[in-house]
């Protein structure tokens, strides 16, 4: 009975999160085109529905009914496996993202956390491990297509993901020093209070009279944001896709639902990265003011609302960067990753560790 209740609650939570993520993906495809067009004096999609708001549905139906082409000479098995390999890791990361306050409810004698699918104590490590698998999808897809552009895109993706995954990990370490835990919930709970306690500002880590000293993680935050843009292969780091050089990079030979899988994976990765950024640096579900406005029973609505606002702000930043910046050249990308981002992240770890060591006692 208890196992059943636990499993049922887990399935319900998984369904809610998956539906939310996939609906957000659909919204993002439209929102990206709309935001880009507003920044470029255009209109974006306007035909399907009023102001084009039904465009994602039309796109989905179109992709679903399109012919599924496997090029001659392609490795059929890997060609079919690659989209799944890139979508599943993107979706699986949401299992440890706390999207609401850290509450517990009793249901038939089972304690359930309703606002996180599962609170494992190595949450952030789990996400890092699985998002790295997503790179395999890209590389294998590029190789299995039997196309030079796809292969070049896949190779670029490999180099880029390795370079920037490192910076993501190093940027996260300083946050882990502050929170002393790998669990996403604990990291978010440590930032409770107000906007001053968020890790970007980082007050409240000192003991005694030193409580006001900010252990600011702004450098780690900037490194994380830039590296996550690179990791999700978004402009200005979209070298694996690089429309003007490589047709569509590793996606060149994909069509129909397989292409849709890659597409969904890209947007799901964007959402995941935004979720991690808001949990790690912007206090997750905490409001920028102390406490909550709503009464205690309903304060979870406020928490989810703030989390949503933060995630969407990040997603807007992705669109904004895309509208503004041109693509980097390959050597610039590598130089930036290894010679700028990596020393910054390493230096930040050292400084944070020293400051925290002297503040704690």
């Amino acid at each position, binding site marked *: 009975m208890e196992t059943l209740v636990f499993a049922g609650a887990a399935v319900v939570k998984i369904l809610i999160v998956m539906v939310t993520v996939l609906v957000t993906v659909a919204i993002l495809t439209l929102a990206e085109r709309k*935001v880009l*067009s*507003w*920044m470029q*004096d*255009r*209109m974006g999609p306007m035909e399907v529905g009023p102001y084009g708001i039904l465009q994602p549905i039309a796109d989905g139906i179109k992709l679903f009914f399109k012919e599924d082409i496997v090029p001659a000479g392609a490795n059929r098995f890997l060609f079919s496996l690659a989209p799944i390999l890139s979508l599943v890791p993107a979706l699986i990361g949401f299992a440890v993202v706390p999207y609401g306050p850290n509450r517990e409810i009793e249901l038939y004698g089972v304690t359930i956390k309703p606002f996180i699918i599962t609170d494992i104590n190595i949450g952030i490590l789990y996400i890092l491990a699985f998002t790295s698998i997503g790179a395999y999808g890209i590389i294998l897809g590029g190789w299995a297509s039997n196309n030079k552009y796809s292969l070049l895109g896949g190779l670029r993706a490999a180099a880029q993901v390795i370079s920037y995954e490192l910076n993501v990990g190093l940027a996260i370490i300083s946050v882990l020093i502050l929170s002393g835990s790998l669990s996403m919930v604990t990291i978010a709970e440590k930032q409770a209070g107000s906007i001053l306690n968020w890790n970007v500002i980082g007050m409240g880590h000192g003991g005694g009279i030193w409580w006001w000293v900010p252990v600011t993680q702004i450098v780690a935050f900037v490194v994380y944001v830039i590296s996550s843009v690179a990791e999700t292969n978004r402009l200005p780091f979209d070298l694996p896709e690089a429309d003007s050089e490589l047709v569509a990079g590793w996606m060149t030979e994909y069509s129909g639902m397989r292409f849709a899988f890659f597409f969904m994976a890209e947007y799901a990765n964007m959402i995941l990265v935004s979720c991690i950024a808001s949990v790690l640096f912007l206090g997750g579900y905490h409001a920028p003011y102390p406490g909550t406005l709503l009464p205690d029973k309903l304060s979870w609505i406020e928490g989810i609302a703030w989390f949503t606002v933060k995630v969407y702000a990040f997603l807007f930043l992705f669109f*904004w960067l895309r509208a*503004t*910046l041109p693509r980097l050249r390959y050597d610039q990308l590598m130089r930036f990753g290894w010679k700028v981002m990596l020393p910054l992240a390493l230096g930040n770890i050292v400084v944070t560790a020293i400051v925290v060591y002297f503040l704690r006692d």
Partner: protein
Amino acid sequence: MALAQWVKTLTFYEILVGMKATITVLIDRILLRKRKAVTLQYPHEKRDLPGTYRGMIALLRYDDGTDKCVGCDLCEAACPSRVITVISSEVEGEPMKRYAKEYYMDMTRCLFCGLCVQACPVDALAMTREYEWAKYNKRDLYLDKEQLLALGDRNFPVREKKLEFQHPNVAYFNIGHKNLPPKES
């Protein structure tokens, strides 16, 4: 100088300037309503055409319904891309008068230069303002005389009188003797 450059690099100054430019456009467009999209929603709204716009070519008629075309072949000679094919013939019972028995235009080749319209001695050709002639079948663009006349009828509803009625005192080379108007005294 070098310090200022360093500060600019460290704070991503140039990138922030660019991002300010894009967000300004968005705010002006959505919040302040100062900008408008340059997009023209084509099938729903259309551009104003310039007065001298050269669209599809049409054959014209006189007000009594007869063709203006006299089958002189000058348009065919003038055409730089050999669009026009005229098969000229005599009007039965009027040996002095000729007309185009068949008249074809291959609009796939036409470059809308308007030389045929300028070449026509009787103003039988005209350029309309139609341009939405995308077809699924290329042969639909091989127009015959009926289609060209229909184009003219639809775009130029006000027809001219016959030349002899317009200028009764001028002798034209193609005036039928039967229909000569009485000269003004």
